[in-house]
């Protein structure tokens, strides 16, 4: 659910050391960070290594490994997190294909769901 809404339109930008965009949890509620098992970013077919992904909400930034033991912070329902991919030089201006896949550990589900969103976004020159 909300698959199409995971990547926020027009949010792709270059940042210091890589690129970033706003992402939302594809879920009808929020989730404590320790239950976000993975956020996989793929840009133009290239997978960003897990250790190069950063997650930022309300001014706090985490690596994915750090998030696994964060029990006092959340990704709220519909909250726009800043997802950063460390990639020296960032992206060239123009169109890019951005993919975001989130894997969650949901207590009541008898499986581990992964939800994916693919968007063609333009990076302003």
């Amino acid at each position, binding site marked *: *659910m*909300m*698959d*199409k*809404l995971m990547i926020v339109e027009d949010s792709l930008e270059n940042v210091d050391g890589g690129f970033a965009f706003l992402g*939302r949890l594809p879920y*009808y*509620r*929020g*989730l*404590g*960070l*320790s*239950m976000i*098992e993975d956020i996989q970013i793929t840009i133009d077919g290239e997978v960003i290594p897990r250790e190069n992904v950063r997650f930022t909400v309300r001014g706090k930034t985490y690596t994915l490994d750090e998030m*696994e*033991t964060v*029990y*006092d*912070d*959340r990704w*709220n*329902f*519909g*909250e726009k997190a800043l997802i950063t991919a460390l990639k020296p030089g960032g992206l060239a201006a123009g169109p890019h294909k951005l993919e975001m896949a989130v894997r969650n*550990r*949901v*207590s*009541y589900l008898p499986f581990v769901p992964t939800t994916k969103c693919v968007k063609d976004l333009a990076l302003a020159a």
Partner: protein
Amino acid sequence: MTSQIKRGVSLYSFQNETFQGKMTLEDCIRTCAELGARGIEVIGEQTFWGWPEVGVNQADIDNWHKLIKQYDCVPVSHDYMLDYKRYKGRPMPFEEQVASVRKDIDFGAALGMPFIRSLVSIAPEVLIAAAPYAEEKGIKLLTEVHAPLHFDHPWIIRMAEMFQKSGSPALGFLPDMGMFLDKFPPVWRAKFERMGVPVHIADYIVKAYEDRVLSEYVILEVQNMGGVGPAIAMAETLRHNAAFEPKRMLDYMPMIHNIHGKFYEMTADYVEPSIPYDKIVAVLSQGGYDGYICSEYEGNRWIEDAEEPDSVEQVRRQQVMLARLLGEPETPALKAAA
């Protein structure tokens, strides 16, 4: 004759709009009030940012009470989750689970809720341990009986026995009407067709569901028909859904305190094509039920790939249907937009 049964809405129904910031909490509550659906149910952590890990601002709780009062609504249920898989690779210890339920009891009480909703996977032992505290706070813990579970499933039967043995009046059930899935929902079928399921396979699955064929036979037959990926997935939905018997609620009426009016689609003539609300309301009336039926729109996730859900219109239609089935003299209607 007007029924004792009351109408409400779970704000879960408006998730696509609230997720995108298209509706505020006030918009949601006002909509319900206009429809005469005065009972308000929330998934705590959907409606209140921060719950449970970070905590909720008192201002947000104050705002909730202000809105409830302003629109003459009634708090019904805080649906909590209990993430017992919070720790990677190890389950949450029993006492911590009980403490977590107590926290949700407190939060439910802070919102003025008579009920908090427990997911069916929460162990009855945990609920029984939390029950005395719930009694103290005037709250009932209602386990949501939801497909693929139902009132004749051994897990529910065992749970009911344990609740009864505990003697606590704080332990009960909240049936989700999705377990009475009479027909294969047209919006499910349409989505599977968009995913590539051929019409003749979709036809077969819909018919097999109506014929109540055992899911495993349907899956094999779809394989034999050459079905792959989405066709198998469409057949596999039958594993987790079934047309259980509304009358089985009768055995448990004294333990049923809230109802999820699950629906996937309301047509323009006020019909839910897949869930037999006429039978359901008849059974609830026969059982003397006098709580709320809270609309729970779940068609959103089945159509959002193709169109923007109009949750308000869907809820309106269900409320019209419910008001009619309950014998209410007036037809619920939204005020014309200003």
